[in-house]
């Protein structure tokens, strides 16, 4: 690197591109995946282990996320909505990945519509899930 020229042109990176939904859903896919892999898997395994341990261990788990009246507390709402929204977003962008993997959906307009559709679908699925849980 002795002859390195500091004024040489650099290859374009994040800052030179105009932001678009395709970049947002790409990052969302990674963030939601990493979140579910850590927080989500810990909570799922805690829940399963609590069921296996007995009613006291299960009550401890439930108490963390609910109020005395049985409804979700603030932490319960954040975790419940956060994890379901993450799941559906990751699921939708995962399906989008499959479409892109077969070589489809790279036309500019269709690619943008697909990216936006994953976010619309994930929010809609989260709302439908919790409406169903609320009505029940």
């Amino acid at each position, binding site marked *: 690197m002795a002859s390195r020229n500091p004024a040489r042109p650099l290859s374009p990176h994040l800052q030179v591109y105009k932001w678009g939904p395709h970049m947002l859903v790409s990052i969302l896919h990674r963030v939601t995946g990493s979140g579910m892999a850590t927080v989500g*898997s810990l909570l799922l*395994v805690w829940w*399963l*282990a609590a*069921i*296996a*341990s007995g*009613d006291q261990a299960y009550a401890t788990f439930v108490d963390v996320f609910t109020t005395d009246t049985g409804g979700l507390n603030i932490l319960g709402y954040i975790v419940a909505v956060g994890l379901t929204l993450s*799941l559906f977003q990751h699921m939708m962008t*995962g399906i989008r990945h499959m479409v892109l993997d077969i070589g489809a959906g790279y036309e500019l307009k269709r690619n943008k519509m697909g990216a936006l559709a994953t976010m619309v679908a994930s929010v809609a699925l989260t709302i439908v899930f919790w409406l169903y849980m609320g009505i029940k």
Partner: protein
Amino acid sequence: MGSGTAIGRVRGLGSAKHGAHHWWQQRLTSGSNLFLMLWLMISVARMPGYDYAAVHLWLQSAWVAVPMALLILSVFYHFRLGLQVVIEDYQHGESRVVTMILLNLFTFTLGGIALFAILKVAFSGAPA
């Protein structure tokens, strides 16, 4: 390294013959995750109640315990592959080795606990 023929130095290194293995396993498990997670969300949503007795009875059924165990295997394999890529992107040198070992510890410890818990409930009689 540094001795032997050029081909001898290359053999067994890099992604020779299994370059797409990681990528393909990620895709395979994403397919199984899709079905297993949809099953979990629908099954949990349709449970009659969420008190201890109801949840224990639910997990005791083979129709729940088997897909739940498969879900743990598929999801945990998938997230181990996914977090590996995240680590490879952001961690370099020694810290990459350390975080990769921690990732394996995390995945197998949690996975082992989860499978044990599922089997314990499935093979037990009445709620504890």
